[in-house]
């Protein structure tokens, strides 16, 4: 593979992600009330020319609800990913200040990594009473350790780099060194880390909502759609679960591939 290929892939994925995400973000403009609009004469209609991806038990269009659900997942995902990355970066930066703080933060990282994060996720989301904010906080609080571990290792290595040692001997403060020498170096790692966290956050949001401690059941979230579909799947209404599931898979794959190619390109 030539050195330019990862960059070409990255550009292609960025273009695809931009199209997909712009469609999702702009969807309320042209979806209007479609995700919530009931048509009692077209309940549980299979996919057809008039109902592209079929309708649910209340006659609501599955395509409209899937798009609305993916949009919601996108915002939850991006918020949780940014919050998780901010926590990881802050704690990794604090770890560089002294060996005691480093030991404390390393212990916290190891402890959190040793606990199955789905259990922790459920407990935090449940303790916070469910809802969008609870999901965002729960995902962020359970997903920062692996990124923090990478950032901490990178920052600690960099702290002993000759140019950082020289900066220190030139009288620069710890804050200056952190802000101008160390953090700019790990920002690409943060970007990739946030992008890798993003699909996790979306999947966990859907899982939590499916399990009943996530988003409000009245919202057209992917987890809500999948939970609703479970009641009808054995009756042969396959489109209720398949299309939201495929939509989620496409979004997650798109972001995951984007992060993967960016990591190789940067």
């Amino acid at each position, binding site marked *: 593979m030539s050195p330019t290929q990862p960059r070409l892939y990255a550009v292609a994925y960025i273009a695809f992600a931009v199209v997909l995400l712009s469609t999702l973000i702009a969807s309320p403009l042209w979806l209007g009330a479609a995700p919530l609009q009931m048509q009692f004469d077209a309940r549980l209609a299979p996919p057809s020319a008039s109902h592209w991806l079929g309708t649910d038990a209340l006659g609501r269009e599955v395509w409209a609800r899937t798009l609305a659900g993916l949009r919601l997942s996108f915002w939850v995902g991006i918020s949780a990913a940014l919050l998780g990355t901010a926590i990881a970066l802050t704690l990794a930066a604090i770890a560089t200040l002294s060996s005691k703080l480093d030991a404390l933060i390393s212990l916290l990282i190891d402890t959190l990594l040793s606990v199955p994060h789905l259990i922790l996720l459920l407990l935090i989301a449940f303790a916070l009473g469910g809802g969008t904010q609870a999901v965002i906080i729960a995902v962020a609080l359970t997903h920062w350790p692996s990124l923090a571990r990478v950032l901490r290792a990178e920052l600690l290595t960099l702290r002993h*780099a*000759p*140019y950082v*040692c*020289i*900066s220190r*001997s*030139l*009288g*620069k403060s710890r804050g200056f060194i952190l802000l*101008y*020498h160390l953090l*700019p*170096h790990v920002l690409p790692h943060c970007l990739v880390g946030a992008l890798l966290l993003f699909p996790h956050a979306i999947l966990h949001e859907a899982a939590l909502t499916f399990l009943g401690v996530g988003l409000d059941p009245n919202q057209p979230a992917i987890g809500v759609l999948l939970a609703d579909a479970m009641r009808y799947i054995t009756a042969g209404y396959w489109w209720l679960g398949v299309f939201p599931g495929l939509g989620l898979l496409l979004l997650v794959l798109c972001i995951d591939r984007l992060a993967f190619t960016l990591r190789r390109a940067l």
Partner: protein
Amino acid sequence: MLEAHHLEFGFRPEQLVLNDISLALSEGEWLGLSGDSGAGKSTLGKLLAGQLSPKDGRICIDGGPLPARGLSPVQWLPQSPELAVNPRWRVAKILREAWQPPAALLHAFGIQPAWLSRFPHALSGGELQRVCVVRALAPGVRYLIADEISTMLDPITQVALWQALKTYAEKHRLGVLVISHDTALLERLCPRRYHLTQGVLAASG
């Protein structure tokens, strides 16, 4: 005066790299340090500049310890200049981190104004080394630890660099510890020289 008293240092507890090292470097003096590869020359240089802490012994400047904060009066110039600069900074910013060197000084060291807007990777090793040397000449610096700074330069650039540094050091009474494998260079630059063998220092001239 920069002094080292009975320094001991090892990267592993049971193995000393430097054993009972004592030396003194006066202001305005040029002191040479030679030794085999792996003898501990760079380690001694880093200890003197405060980049490493000795296992035993102490380093004094005018009888007191090296300052823990602020500009260190002892500056270390490493062999590889590309590791001594932030690769994301332009040359002007690299220099400004220490001070704003006058144009005459930049000229004396052959630093061209066009280099200032370049990133380190756009300069050769010799060009970057000159930038590192000028950065280390900030007001308040009294001693330089020049750790094989001319090893990777061609002979003409070596002469130009040492001449410029010698002129500046004499004018500002800088003490310079020249670490090198090149005994001819040390004999030319330094009236007093040491040789480091297996962690032990011996006067060689």
